[in-house]
């Protein structure tokens, strides 16, 4: 049975996150456009997959993520994925656990969907979660 565009994007997103968690650079290069534009939560922009420091596991190690909400909007050959993700991992060997609003833009290049842009916004810590983390 043929997959819907939404299911294809879901699969591409799952492959991307698996590649990020397992630091699978080969898989990452398949789903990410070489000239992708990435803006991190501090507003720093990197153009080109080679320039993104967070793909270096000694800088960022992503241990897991939970999708809290996700919405996909299609513009013919473009899919804009907007989601809230809880991410856990280590940044410069310091453990973190935070929620991000993430915007990912996928483009169909005639053969497959590739990530062309992504932006992260750090969400404020929820008071109740903060209390839990102190326990």
């Amino acid at each position, binding site marked *: 049975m043929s997959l819907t565009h939404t299911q294809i994007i879901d699969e591409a997103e799952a492959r991307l996150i698996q590649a990020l968690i397992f630091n699978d650079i080969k898989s990452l290069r398949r789903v990410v456009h070489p000239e992708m534009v990435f803006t991190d939560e501090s507003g720093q*922009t990197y*153009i080109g997959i080679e320039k993104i420091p967070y793909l270096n596991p000694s800088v960022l190690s992503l241990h897991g993520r939970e999708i809290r909400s996700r919405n996909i*909007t299609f*513009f013919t050959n473009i899919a*804009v994925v907007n989601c*809230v993700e809880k991410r856990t991992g280590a940044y410069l060997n310091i453990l973190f656990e935070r929620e991000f609003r993430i*915007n990912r833009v996928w483009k169909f290049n005639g053969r497959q969907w590739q990530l*062309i842009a992504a*932006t992260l916004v750090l969400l404020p810590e929820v008071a109740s979660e903060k209390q839990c983390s102190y326990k």
Partner: protein
Amino acid sequence: MNKTHHEVVEDADVRLTDALVNGNTCALKHLLHPNAVYTNPHGEVFSGAQNLPVNNPYMYRITLMQTLERSISFFNNVAVVTAIEKREGLFMDIPFSGLYSTTRMWKFNRHWQMIAATSVMI
């Protein structure tokens, strides 16, 4: 002389900035895709051009938007504009001012239209 794609997108981006400051709804309607998705610096998402904060001037109004840096990447019919902007305005009648890193995605469909944008406070 014909303009390059880079110049056309840059022009569209400048016109959008002007329209946001001037509240030019006619220009906004032309430049924004009806299903445009905007994520503000607080992580709130607005779907659909009609629901964007700029269409509610009583709540959110930009009085100054100065582009300090602009970079444009092309992916065939898609352009990704990243800009550092100085913004001033009013949110619920409370003045705000700050530097923002904004990513705007443009798609060509007879003319360039903005389909998505995200702003991050620097």
